[in-house]
């Protein structure tokens, strides 16, 4: 039972991966990310001996920014497109549960993003090599949290994708991603608001805190970042992603495809 279910989920994931890599938007965004990283080679000439910092800053920011765009724009189409094209119906007529389909879609895009992040990391390493510097393994402590943040973004995009159209889902996901990057403001607002601070505190914990996934500055400056911190961020990503995925799966189960 368990193995058969896993095989079905993996089959959906494999198909999703194949489908994603055929998307033109993926290549466009990946191309821009790699070109931007390589362009830091030109910028270093203008930076007054800050080439290494600039290459690392631009490389990590490109991973974060373009990874988020890929996660949002491919993620929102994963379920909604299947519904709009009505290709979902024959699939669900097969021995495949809605939950398996939903999780398979998530894993497929998660794997696509893993490949993308690996390509962008390779691009960053090549750019650093071109400036005569070796790739610093400490950067992985910044890259892994970026990838974990992308997982959460995919889960949010999938959730919206099950309950609304692709366009609205994209707007909703982007809004949550942006709001999540401002979570530190909510934390500071709490002290100023007095009684209403409780509401702000509630929002602070409910909204996905994308600030957690930002260790870029620390790794670029070579600050000691303990693996336990990366582990805690992983734990947060795992729990939050699971919550969003369960909510999405429940919404998907409840949807009436008539």
């Amino acid at each position, binding site marked *: 039972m368990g193995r058969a279910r896993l095989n079905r989920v993996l089959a959906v994931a494999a198909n999703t991966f194949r489908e994603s890599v055929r998307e033109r938007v993926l290549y466009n965004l990946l191309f821009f990310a790699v070109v931007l990283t390589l362009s830091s080679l030109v*910028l270093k000439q*203008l930076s*007054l001996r*800050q080439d290494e910092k600039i290459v690392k*800053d*631009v490389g990590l920011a490109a991973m974060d920014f373009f990874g988020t765009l890929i996660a949002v724009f491919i993620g929102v189409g994963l379920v909604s497109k299947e519904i709009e094209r009505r290709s979902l119906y024959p699939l669900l007529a097969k021995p495949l549960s809605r939950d398996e389909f939903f999780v398979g879609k998530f894993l497929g895009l998660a794997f696509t993003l893993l490949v993308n992040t690996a390509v962008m990391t390779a691009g960053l390493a090549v750019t650093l090599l071109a400036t005569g510097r070796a790739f610093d393994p400490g950067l992985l402590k910044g890259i892994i949290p970026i990838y974990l943040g992308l997982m959460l973004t995919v889960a949010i995009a999938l959730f919206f994708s099950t309950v609304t159209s692709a366009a609205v889902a994209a707007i909703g996901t982007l809004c949550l991603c942006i709001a999540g990057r401002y979570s530190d403001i909510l934390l500071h607002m709490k002290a100023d608001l007095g009684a209403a601070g409780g509401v702000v505190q509630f929002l602070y914990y409910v909204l996905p805190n994308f600030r957690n996934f930002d260790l870029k*500055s620390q790794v*670029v400056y070579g600050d000691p970042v303990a693996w336990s911190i990366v582990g805690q961020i992983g734990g947060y990503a795992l729990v939050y992603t699971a919550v969003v995925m369960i909510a999405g799966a429940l919404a998907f189960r409840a949807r009436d495809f008539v």
Partner: protein
Amino acid sequence: MKAKIALVALAAIVPFCQQRIDAALGEHRATEEALYIWSGSYVKRLSPGFENVMADLYWLRTVQYFGGQRVFAKEKRYDLLEPLTQITVTLDPRFEIAYQYGAIFLAEPWPRGADRAEKSVALLKQGAEATGSWRLRQLEGYFTLIFLHDARKAAEILLEASKMPGAAYWLKTLAADTLARAGDRELARRIWLNMYEQSDPGAIRANAEFNLKALQSLDDRDDLQEAVIAFEAETRRRPRSLRELPEVRTGKLRVMDPVGVPYEYDETSGLVSVSQKSSLWRRPREHL
């Protein structure tokens, strides 16, 4: 056919139009710079998660702005230099090079820099507090002495720098010397030599080298002045030109400053001076 002729004719006019524009505005010209957001905090709020890369972009713009004004602008103005540097370090408070170079750009006398020594020293202080860097604190001490001419304050700052983690052992001695020998050319030379030796090849080293040359020109001028006085004492007349001095004829003294501009000599007063045409010329107090 008419279209082809028009195409060729119009294409031929394009370089002519460009030449007219270059003639009017200069081949290399600084573009009119505009800064739409003046607050680093606002830029920070607009780029959550991307503050460092935005700091890099603002830093590149700062360097381009400074270079554009210094090299290409006919009327050199550095109005945006301070806000651009402030935005950069607000976005990335640990951007040490931005404090260092930003302070040099701000402190240097016009037209080489913005001539805003107070802002420069304040920037270095802010940088030393944000990064905990003794080098920034040391530079703050140097600039307080060289540009603000406040030896007591400079000595205090250098003493504070000497207590910071990793600080060079000789900072304490330098602090004491600063207090005892403020205004002394040798002390200034020691400071610039320190900056030269501590920096990598680039703008900071070039700036230190330039200031060492400026001090050398003052030494040369003094030597020439002494030679003129000695000549007058011996011959009971002033030399008609510096080339008449025996020390110059034997090659012991030079009539050109370190950047190749001849020293000026006024036969009527007998005074030797660094030429105002030389890039090494400065107002009297600017050297120390």
